């Protein structure tokens, strides 16, 4: 049989039934590896269902710090008879299949090229615990205990996690540890251990944290000063607002009165959620909503209003598989175009593309500044993978000297000095006008906000010249925004290669790994990570400086590529789409193979070397 022989470099997948409490045991497994200082990246693959359907949890352990998905399962922990056939098949030759052998494994699931580790989990918990719910929960903990022996997870680290988790329910600590021991001792007694895939403590995690992007966005909203959150539940964005609620109810309560310095509205639908946000920001508060594709579709009319009437708003779009209800619990990046141009008429919106939880935090907090400064909606483009999975991330960072940028808002004193206030009057040429908040001054600064066309003084008009002046000014504001939005990240001090690669958001992890894989094969690429729309000069230059650029994204129609072609007027042939849209996070091998294929078909390797720009 094939030998895997891997230390800190393998993939473990858990096959569970949803609603059985497996999540917390699986998280404990991942966290233990993290606390052993080894980089790893866990992913939930779950159905749109509450109880009874198959769900998977996949942990990639990577000494080198690769956090994207990798194909091929080294160890399968299968506690779900429903998906057994699929699960057996997905194990790599030489890999391991750990299962509950209380019932004998059906011969159809036997493969010659993998190892089987049977543990009578159901039997063990039946004897140990009397409460049926406990039996179900502890069955999960038993396999974690077994893994601790098989993979060399430090037992004390697992025990520490349990102690942390049940700080407030101390009674539960002992039975949990007992369950771990049951698994551990069973392996000690019946199997050789550790396996030829195993863990070794490292110091590679440093000050990283393990957090999901939605929680990071929620904290970003708190640090960004949001007081009004309005939403309608939708996977995968729901946990943004639940995390916001959890933290504000600790951080934003008046200590003396117990009153809240925030309001959360669970609206009747996404239309209303967006309306609440616009009403609140129009009235001078910072406000946000979180939603996903179907919600953005419903919010479109309001997004157009906010764009045209120039009202700040922050929308966190945690993307999921579309179209329509699509694959509600699978990841994609399918709303690039529908977000960039959401709503009718000549409308465009500023988009931000975080790729790590730390950036979810940072970009959400900055979104409030940008929204106020540009008086327009800002869409933070997260996705299910980033939002709902935990990621190893640099810590969230805030500098106490940082101040909110509330943009051009006139105070009563400033209004007092003003001859005549023009809400849509561009006094300094940047396309951004001064606004006033209702109730500021008794006689000055009031105006009528509307989604219809208006002149510089906010008076309704259907005069064509006034209309053109206004929409041209909005285009000028868009130009100003190009300089203010986060610039792209370049991965080389100088572009040196003929071919480039562009990625954004969660394709980043896999793209960086794919570049390493390609480099091993002698293919060097320059790389750029897009962090925002509108695209600034650097983005255009990067494309112009390369013969061909691969654009990596997770949708069928290469939407980012379309946006680049449309906005920068680059030749479509120059941008080669590299796509993955099966609902699972893109693995590095997919990128590497697609790029390699293009190289083989389009350019012979020698030509490519010739095409390299000489280093100057």
């Amino acid at each position, binding site marked *: 049989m094939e030998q895997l022989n891997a230390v800190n470099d393998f993939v473990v997948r858990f096959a569970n039934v949803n609603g059985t409490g497996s999540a917390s045991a699986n998280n404990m497994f991942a966290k233990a590896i993290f606390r052993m200082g080894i980089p790893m990246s866990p992913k939930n693959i779950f159905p749109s269902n509450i109880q009874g359907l198959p769900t998977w949890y996949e942990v990639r352990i990577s000494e080198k710090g690769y956090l994207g998905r990798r194909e091929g399962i080294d160890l399968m922990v299968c506690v779900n008879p429903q998906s057994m056939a699929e699960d057996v098949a997905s194990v790599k030759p030489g890999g391991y299949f750990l299962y509950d052998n209380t019932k004998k494994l059906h011969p159809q699931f036997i493969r010659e090229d993998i190892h089987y580790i049977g543990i009578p989990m159901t039997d063990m918990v039946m004897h140990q615990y009397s409460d049926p719910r406990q039996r179900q929960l502890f069955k999960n903990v038993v396999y974690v205990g077994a893994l601790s022996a098989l993979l060399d997870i430090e037992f004390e680290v697992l025990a520490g996690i349990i102690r942390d988790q049940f700080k407030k329910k101390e009674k539960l600590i002992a039975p949990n540890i007992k369950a771990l021991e049951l698994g551990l001792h069973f392996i000690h007694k019946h199997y050789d251990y550790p396996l030829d895939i195993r863990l070794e403590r490292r110091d590679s995690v440093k*000050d990283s944290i393990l957090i999901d992007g939605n929680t990071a966005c929620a904290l970003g909203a708190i640090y960004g000063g949001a007081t009004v959150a309005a939403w309608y539940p939708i996977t995968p964005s729901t946990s943004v607002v639940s995390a916001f609620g959890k933290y504000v109810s600790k951080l934003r309560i008046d200590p003396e009165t117990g*009153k809240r*310095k*925030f309001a959360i509205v669970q609206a009747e639908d996404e239309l209303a959620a967006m309306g609440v946000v616009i009403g609140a920001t129009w009235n001078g508060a910072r406000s946000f909503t979180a939603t996903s594709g179907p919600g953005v579709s419903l919010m479109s009319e*309001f997004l157009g209003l906010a764009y045209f009437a120039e009202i700040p708003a922050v929308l966190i779009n945690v993307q999921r598989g579309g179209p329509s209800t699509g694959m509600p619990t699978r990841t994609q990046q399918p709303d690039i175009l529908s977000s960039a141009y959401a709503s009718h008429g000549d409308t465009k919106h500023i988009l931000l593309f975080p790729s790590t939880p730390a950036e979810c935090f940072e970009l959400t907090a900055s979104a409030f500044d940008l929204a106020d400064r540009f008086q327009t909606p800002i869409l933070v483009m997260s996705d299910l993978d980033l939002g709902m999975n935990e990621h190893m991330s640099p810590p969230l960072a*805030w500098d106490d000297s940082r101040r909110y940028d509330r943009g051009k808002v006139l105070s009563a004193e400033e209004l007092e000095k003003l001859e005549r206030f023009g809400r849509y009057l561009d006094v300094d040429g940047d396309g951004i006008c001064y606004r006033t908040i209702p*109730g500021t001054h008794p006689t000055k600064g*009031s105006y009528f906000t509307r989604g219809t066309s208006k002149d510089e003084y906010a008076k309704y008009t259907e005069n064509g010249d006034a209309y053109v002046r206004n929409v041209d000014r909005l285009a000028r504001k868009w130009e100003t925004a190009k300089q203010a939005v986060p610039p792209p990240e370049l991965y080389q001090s100088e572009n040196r290669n003929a071919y480039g690669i562009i990625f954004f958001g969660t394709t980043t992890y896999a793209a960086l790994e794919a570049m390493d894989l390609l480099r091993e094969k002698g293919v060097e690429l320059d790389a750029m990570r897009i962090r925002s729309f509108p695209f600034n000069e650097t983005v255009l230059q990067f494309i112009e400086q390369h013969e061909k650029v691969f654009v990596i994204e997770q949708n069928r129609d290469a939407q980012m590529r379309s946006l680049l072609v449309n906005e920068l007027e680059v030749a479509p042939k120059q941008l080669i789409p590299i796509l993955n849209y099966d609902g699972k996070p893109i693995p590095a091998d997919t990128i590497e193979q697609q790029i390699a294929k293009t190289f083989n078909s389009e350019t012979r390797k020698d030509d490519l070397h010739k095409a390299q720009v000489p280093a100057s």
Partner: protein
Amino acid sequence: MTYIKPRFRHPELPKNKIGYAKADYEGAISTLCAGCGHDSISGAIVQACYELSIEPHRLAKLSGIGCSSKTPTYFLSNSHGFNTVHGRMPSIATGAYLANRELIYLGVSGDGDSASIGMGQFVHAVRRNVNMVYIVMNNGCYGLTKGQHSATADLGAQSKTGSVNPFPSIDLVGLALELGATFVGRSFSGDKTQLVPLIKAAMSHPGFALLDVISPCVTFNNQSKSTKSYDYVRAHLEATATIDFVPHKEEIRVDYHPGHSASVELHDGSVIQLHKLAPHWDPTDRNSAVTRLQESKIKGEILTGLLYIDPESQGLHDLEQTVPQALNTLQEEDLNPGAKLLDEINESFR
């Protein structure tokens, strides 16, 4: 085109308690059809705000889309206004109110705006008891899109083009009562004596105050077989009571007739004085309001006046337990937990 009224004022014009003349509450000249009911309601709003001595900048006026929703341009030009999108004013008002609980929010909508496209938002603003006055200028048709039946058109009513409405009407007043609205009234654009005190009472009510105001569309729905025409409405009006609104600290001068009179004291100390026209109705008893409404409906009457008020009403901010100051005045110190706390949060993720 918007007409701006000349701002010349006669020095001897009467002033209210805060020194404003009635003209200070007016807006641009209306561009609605001459005789449109909506203009009379604008006039009543101006009158009510003048009489209540409201500081115009402490009031925000919001509307949806429709002829009715255009009216905020025609009153209170010193107030901030927001002409939102069709049927969505309630959510904007909810957000605005959450951001600043200190302003008065006056929402203006149409029957199309509220009973059709915006029904969902209307219902939920009622349910949340958003502290606002919500006036529906109800003409039984879509004025701005040229007279189609609306959902408040009565069964069998005939439009100007002759089409007969085959569906029962939605009665926003009955619906609001059912939903638990804390202030419900109905009036007629042609009855200022009733409408002005009703608006004043609604403005003093801490919670969602619905005023369904029948407001004939002279251009598209004033023909003989319409049930929202001036003639039809006048012939079928029936009131719960005559109403007088006595603001906080003013002397109550209305004669009190036991059995026929009722007075409701509001949170801010103002008083609604009612001279009841039907004995079995109590304005603070929701059931009696529902019954009274049903009785009139059966008789084919249009019941107007204050129908129901909950004097214990608590607005959304109180239900949400927010701090007493406006959320939009909170400063960075109140909002941002700071770097040290973030370190602790980071630590909890290790």
